[in-house]
């Protein structure tokens, strides 16, 4: 402890601005506001009732104390080599970032911070789109002038360019412009725009306006020859209904009708309606049943086709030559909401082929980019960020992948994939058996209270669950595969949603090998290549033979894993 204090007091350590404790005054605002409003409305405050004041006062005291502790315990300094931050009382953290790894220095100040002339400084090492914040160092808060100095000190280059906002840290520009009012443009319009230094008058949060501007600039810059890689083929709309949504959208009119009735104040007896429907269906002839189902499917098909049209209208994937070092990929699409998405090719780390089971029936697939700095969103029917193609013929997806990655042959092609050991199949069959047993047991348990025959419900559950789970297990095993193809590590897995990933070997920044007790016994392992791209930060080769997988990993990135492998016949020379 004493050693540390000496160290801390030594050279150049700075504290946060003490005014940061005052920022907490904002917590006093809402209760005071409520009291003021009450006073205005009722002509006087009931001073008997002190609850509100006590709670807010306690909250304020607590926050102020913790902020003072934080102020006391947080120190930072900038040396020639690194930025160091020391913080925490119970959980002590010491972070040091080498100065040349500091990629972004963002200053944010909310309204309250501005009142006190404070700024929150966040130093990032590049990948701003992270689930955990360990790569970021946050100084909350320092004086605005101090923040500007820090920024200038750490990013002399950015300071020089501050007048003309050229954004080298912004690899991905993704934007959506609602042409017509669409249901929820706000949900996806949030995007990884690095927050920049704003003039004091600017609003604290102007992401949306920034996102509206960029595509226009980009569009203006397009001028010279943009090479078209793919465009929408109207026949692809036939893949739209090959999605589980087909079963769901058909129900939408019913729920909408219910919503409408509720809004108009018409009482709807849901339980009665459901019971009525069940009773009606029970007495109705079988053909009526079929007609209902058919109508629902037709409505679902129409719905998915409309959704497809809205999302992929005028879809184009182009390559723009751009600067000397690398070009840009540009996807533009959308009918009501136009989406445009730009990706620097040097950020590209690979591609991902996605085949949900229904698309597989139609020999179709989707294609996504794997890129660092690309915010991955859930890919729904509209296609999440990074989508390079709508649902399209598989062959087309391979051709596009090859073209995007600049290869003559698609690295995603399944022909070269190597199968995984039978133990991986046994593992899946075992899981299927466990699931079946659980389902049958659940059926037995439910049969009693529901008044069904135990034997029959167990049999019914078994008839449904056993073949289904076994099929899934077998299919999941068939999906497994991996290989090294040229500059790529290729891995495939998944049953309901088969994913093939081709990751550039140069984009691999580490390995994570995980083995469960079962895998240790049967000689399997999950081998994950960690990378700066993707939400999970890693792409996994599942249930690969332990030795085979290690040798593959050792070969994929020379001089990294090989030095920790023993028993390898001839690979040992690489280190």
């Amino acid at each position, binding site marked *: 402890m004493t050693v540390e204090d000496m160290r801390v007091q030594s050279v150049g350590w700075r504290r946060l601005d003490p005014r940061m404790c005052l920022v907490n005054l904002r917590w006093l605002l809402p209760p005071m506001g409520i009291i003021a409003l009450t006073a205005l409305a009722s002509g006087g405050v009931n001073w008997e009732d002190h609850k509100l004041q006590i709670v807010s006062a306690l909250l304020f005291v607590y926050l102020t104390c913790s902020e003072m502790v934080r102020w006391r315990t947080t120190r930072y300094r900038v040396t020639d080599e690194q930025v160091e931050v020391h913080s925490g009382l119970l959980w002590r953290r010491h972070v040091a970032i080498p100065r040349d*790894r500091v990629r972004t220095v963002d200053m944010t100040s909310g309204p309250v911070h501005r009142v006190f002339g404070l700024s929150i400084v966040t130093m990032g090492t590049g990948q701003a789109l992270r689930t*955990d914040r*360990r790569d970021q160092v946050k100084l909350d808060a320092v004086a605005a002038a101090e923040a500007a100095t820090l920024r200038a000190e750490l990013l002399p280059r950015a300071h020089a360019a501050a007048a003309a906002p050229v954004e080298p840290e912004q690899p991905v520009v993704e934007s959506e412009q609602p042409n017509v009012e669409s249901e929820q443009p706000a949900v996806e319009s949030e995007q990884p725009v690095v927050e920049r230094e704003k003039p004091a008058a600017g609003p604290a949060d102007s992401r949306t306006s920034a996102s509206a501007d960029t595509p226009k600039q980009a569009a203006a810059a397009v001028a010279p020859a943009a090479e078209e890689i793919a465009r929408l083929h109207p026949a692809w709309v036939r893949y739209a209904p090959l999605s589980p949504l087909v079963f769901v959208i058909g129900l939408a009119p019913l729920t909408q009708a219910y919503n409408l009735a509720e809004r108009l104040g018409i009482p709807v007896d849901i339980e009665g309606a459901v019971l009525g429907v069940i009773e009606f269906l029970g007495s109705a002839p079988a053909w009526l049943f079929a007609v209902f189902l058919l109508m629902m499917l037709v409505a679902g098909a129409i719905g998915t086709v409309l959704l497809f049209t809205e999302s992929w209208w005028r879809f184009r994937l182009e390559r723009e030559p751009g600067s000397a070092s690398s070009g840009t990929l540009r996807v533009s699409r959308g009918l009501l909401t136009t989406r445009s998405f730009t990706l620097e090719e040097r950020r590209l780390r690979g591609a991902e082929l996605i085949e949900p089971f229904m698309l597989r029936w139609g020999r179709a697939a989707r294609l996504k980019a794997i890129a660092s700095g690309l915010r991955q969103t859930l890919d729904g029917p509209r296609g999440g960020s990074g989508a390079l193609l709508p649902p399209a013929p598989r062959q087309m997806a391979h051709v596009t992948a090859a073209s995007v990655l600049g290869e003559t042959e698609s690295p995603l092609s399944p022909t070269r994939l190597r199968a995984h050991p039978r133990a991986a199949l046994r593992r899946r069959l075992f899981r299927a058996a466990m699931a079946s047993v659980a389902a049958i047991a659940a059926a037995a348990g439910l049969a009693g209270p529901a008044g069904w025959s135990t034997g029959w419900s167990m049999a019914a559950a078994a008839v449904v669950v056993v073949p289904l789970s076994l099929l899934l297990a077998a299919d999941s095993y068939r999906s497994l595969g991996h290989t090294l193809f040229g500059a790529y590590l290729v891995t495939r897995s998944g049953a309901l949603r088969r994913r093939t990933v081709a990751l550039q070997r140069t984009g691999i920044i580490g390995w994570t090998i995980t083995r469960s007790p079962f895998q240790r016994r049967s000689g399997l392992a999950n081998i*994950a290549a960690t990378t700066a791209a993707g939400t999970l930060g890693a792409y996994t080769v599942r249930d690969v033979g332990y030795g*085979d997988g290690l040798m593959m990993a050792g070969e994929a990135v020379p001089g990294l894993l090989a030095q920790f492998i023993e028993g390898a016949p001839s690979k040992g020379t690489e280190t």
Partner: protein
Amino acid sequence: MTQQAEAVRLRPPQNAVHPRAITMWTTRSAVAYGLVALVLAGLAAFVDGAGTLFAVLAFLTALAGACYAVVVPRWRYRVHRWEVTDDAVYTSSGWLWHQYRVAPMSRIQTVDTMRGPFYQLFKLSAVTVTTASAMGPLRIDGLDEEFARDLVDRLNRVTQATPGDAT
């Protein structure tokens, strides 16, 4: 290839963590389970009607906690290992599930230490090595405090000397 591959495996990293880590992990899990057991025991004393249930739960928790605190830290100590070579950091962790992680020096972004209350009590430290991957940092859990500080300095010096932007 497959026949040769039978013998291929990862060798464990060279260094064990500090033996005090066993004590720290034991204390930590004992305290955590102890608190839960205490709360349950308190409920057993004060809740009418369900007293026996809570008493049984408290007993089971204490039993499970005792087993966990005795077995798992020792087990963990055998698995948790680490190694720093000229060009990579290599760690292993876990007890039932084993995890080996490797990060090349050239891709390391930050190296820091983290010390929770129990770490401070036993003068231990956890060193975390962050790369650009969203998978999270490599963690060497339970090094001696002084030793960890030197290790972090060393790693920082090496990463600074290694060119590249780490992505």
